[in-house]
């Protein structure tokens, strides 16, 4: 081999070593992550974490030419604990960016701290409307959804496409319930529909009999917003009370989300709900995601699982966009706001200027396919904003949805 021919090869080898040496001398990117991993919300928290771990494995824990260190903490679904863990991650572990939280209460408790420390944070699940509306923070980027968002679309759909004119709502009695029902009511009533009655059940509800007994049999539909154990109990009792088949059941997406759907039976079939995701969504990106999630964790991904897969993809896209220079927090949060990751399981999404995603809302009907219950997508509202079709400024001047 002549020297003249070998020289470019050698040079490029040297260059490669230098580049490699450079990338490896940079310390790892530290991502702080917290969800409830103990207590009643542990399963949902675990799903969120699973989605994130799966994505980080896919990219080999590397982004922007740097290694990724993931620090996981359990916030116990208690806001004060969440804040303590956030302090630990930021002040002791010196993480560059944070992600996580499940409950709105934790989300609100963290926000002032996140803002004061100027730490970019991704909220993959927390759906409290005001976090990206009246009390938004420039350091918080929500890649999930706001509670009323799919319900604005669903209110119109229920009136126009399902032909429903009168509804009784039954929902969990806290902010998530109020905002979901509020969103549904707003557009449904604007169309000419009527909410006959609103039933609120405590989070600790064990028996739906006193509530189901109050539902008049001549309404067109019951709108249910529940999750976890309450959703399972409700579905069973709805059938036992002879309401199934007589009064249509519709509701918020969590009522039939895949975190409870596999534990339901025939009683759930036919329920129509709205959410920004369904594990049965028929796109190549979602099929690939759902398949590998099922292989890895031996269960169907819930919307919680998808949330931090997409959230993770979002975060990594932002880190890549600034070549891993995460020490520049302002640049990172700007990149987070501009990021446009593609091939997401839930479909295309982008952030509005308030930090909330504009994304598809899927109308799903529970069906039994190959012996398994699934949320079959029967209609899609593309690119739904948290403000629906309303003017943001006017929307924000009105009060938040309450009971």
């Amino acid at each position, binding site marked *: 081999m002549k020297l003249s021919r070998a020289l470019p090869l050698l040079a490029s080898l040297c260059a490669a070593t230098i580049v490699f040496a450079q990338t490896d001398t940079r310390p790892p990117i530290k991502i702080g992550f917290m969800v409830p*991993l*103990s207590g009643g919300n542990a399963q949902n928290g675990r799903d969120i974490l699973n989605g994130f771990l799966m994505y980080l494995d896919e990219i080999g824990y590397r982004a922007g030419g740097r290694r990724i260190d993931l620090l996981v*903490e*359990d916030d116990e679904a*208690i*806001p*004060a604990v969440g*804040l*303590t*863990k956030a*302090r*630990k991650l930021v*002040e*002791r572990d010196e993480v560059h960016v944070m992600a996580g939280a499940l*409950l*709105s*209460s934790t989300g*609100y*408790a963290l*926000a*002032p*701290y996140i803002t004061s420390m100027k730490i970019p944070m991704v909220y993959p699940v927390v759906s*409290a409307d005001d976090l990206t509306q009246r009390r938004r923070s420039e350091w918080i980027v929500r890649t999930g959804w706001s509670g009323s968002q799919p319900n604005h679309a669903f209110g119109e759909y229920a009136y126009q496409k399902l032909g429903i004119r009168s509804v009784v709502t039954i929902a969990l*009695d*806290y*902010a998530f319930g109020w905002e979901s029902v509020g969103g549904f009511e707003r557009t449904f009533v604007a169309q000419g529909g009527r909410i006959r009655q609103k039933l609120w059940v405590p989070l600790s509800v064990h028996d739906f009999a006193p509530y189901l007994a109050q539902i008049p049999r001549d309404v067109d539909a019951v709108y249910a917003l529940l999750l976890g154990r309450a959703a399972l109990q409700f579905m069973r009792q709805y059938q036992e009370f002879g309401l199934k088949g007589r009064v249509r059941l519709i509701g918020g997406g969590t009522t039939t989300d895949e975190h409870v759907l596999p534990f339901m039976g025939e009683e759930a079939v036919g329920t129509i709900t709205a959410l920004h995701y369904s594990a049965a969504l028929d796109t190549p990106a979602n099929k690939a995601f759902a398949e590998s999630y099922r292989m890895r964790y031996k269960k169907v991904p819930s919307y919680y699982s998808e949330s931090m897969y997409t959230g993770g993809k979002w975060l990594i896209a932002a880190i890549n966009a600034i070549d891993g220079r995460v020490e520049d927090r302002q640049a990172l949060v700007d990149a987070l706001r501009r990021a446009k990751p593609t091939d997401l399981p839930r479909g295309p999404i982008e952030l509005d200027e308030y930090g909330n995603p504009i994304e598809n809302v899927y109308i799903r009907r529970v069906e039994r396919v190959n012996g398994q219950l699934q949320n079959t997508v029967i209609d899609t509202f593309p690119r739904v904003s948290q403000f629906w079709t309303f003017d943001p400024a006017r929307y924000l001047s009105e009060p938040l949805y*309450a*009971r």
Partner: protein
Amino acid sequence: MAERSAPRAWRTPGLVLLAVVLLASPPFLSAYWVGLLTQVVILGILAMSLDLLIGYTGLPSLGHAGFFGVAAYGVGVLSTTYHAGVWASVTGGLLTGTLLAALFGLIVSHVRDVYFLMITMALGMVLWGLSFRWIPVTGGDNGISGIPRLEGLVGLPVSGPVPFYYVALAVFAVCGGLMMLLVRSPFGLTLQGIREQEPRMRSLGFNTWLHSYLSYVGAGLFASIAGIMWAYYNGFVSPTYLDLTASSELFLMVTLGGPSTLVGPVIGAAAIVILKNVMSAYTARWLLILGIIYIVTILWAPQGLWNLGGRSKAE
């Protein structure tokens, strides 16, 4: 009192060590550890206040976090909704918590033992329900956030975790000292008499109802002080401050550390705060470990850590 005379030689050095750690270590610690120490001293005040009831008067309360939470809500509502100044907020929080204790005391002071436990638990649940459902005032599940920082408000030239810690430590020292005086006073001795033999105290002419009532109100007062500090430390209040979990964890702090010692509950608070935070960083099974520690303590130190090595009451 015979049990007092049992020599526990390690107690004095232990106390000195505790004082030195609390006083001198923060400037050398990271902000995170200063934060944990702040939690220890604030929850220490709270645990000591419960010790007045459990350890000295013999009244096991499972609703004590209620006063802590109500005072915190007092501060939260006054300083955010009404934009009250720091002293107005503090006074407001203190009054809400203490007056509530004075009111509840009327209901609970005539019952003992398990009945006391049940009624205080029920009242605690009522307060929790109120914080959760009285949405216009408490913000419901989302709580109230945006409580201003305390350091600037009380006129300290510097802010940050360390100055706040020393404010909390000063409050802790004053409260601890007052409670120490209280339990050593003739009044405090009466409380211990009620704990040991209430019928005899009554036959000696003591109004045991009034004494129990006053100890309940006093405990409520100190719990309110802790609640105020907690509200300023976290910058928000939420219903989890006063739920049953909070009350039972508090109960554990007292029993783990050693009731009727005042120092013991502080050790208990420190042990629980530090164990929880340190262990959960390393393992997801930290609850299991904490459970094992509780069981081991019950088996090996049934009177609590601070009473270790002494003769038990039964002897």
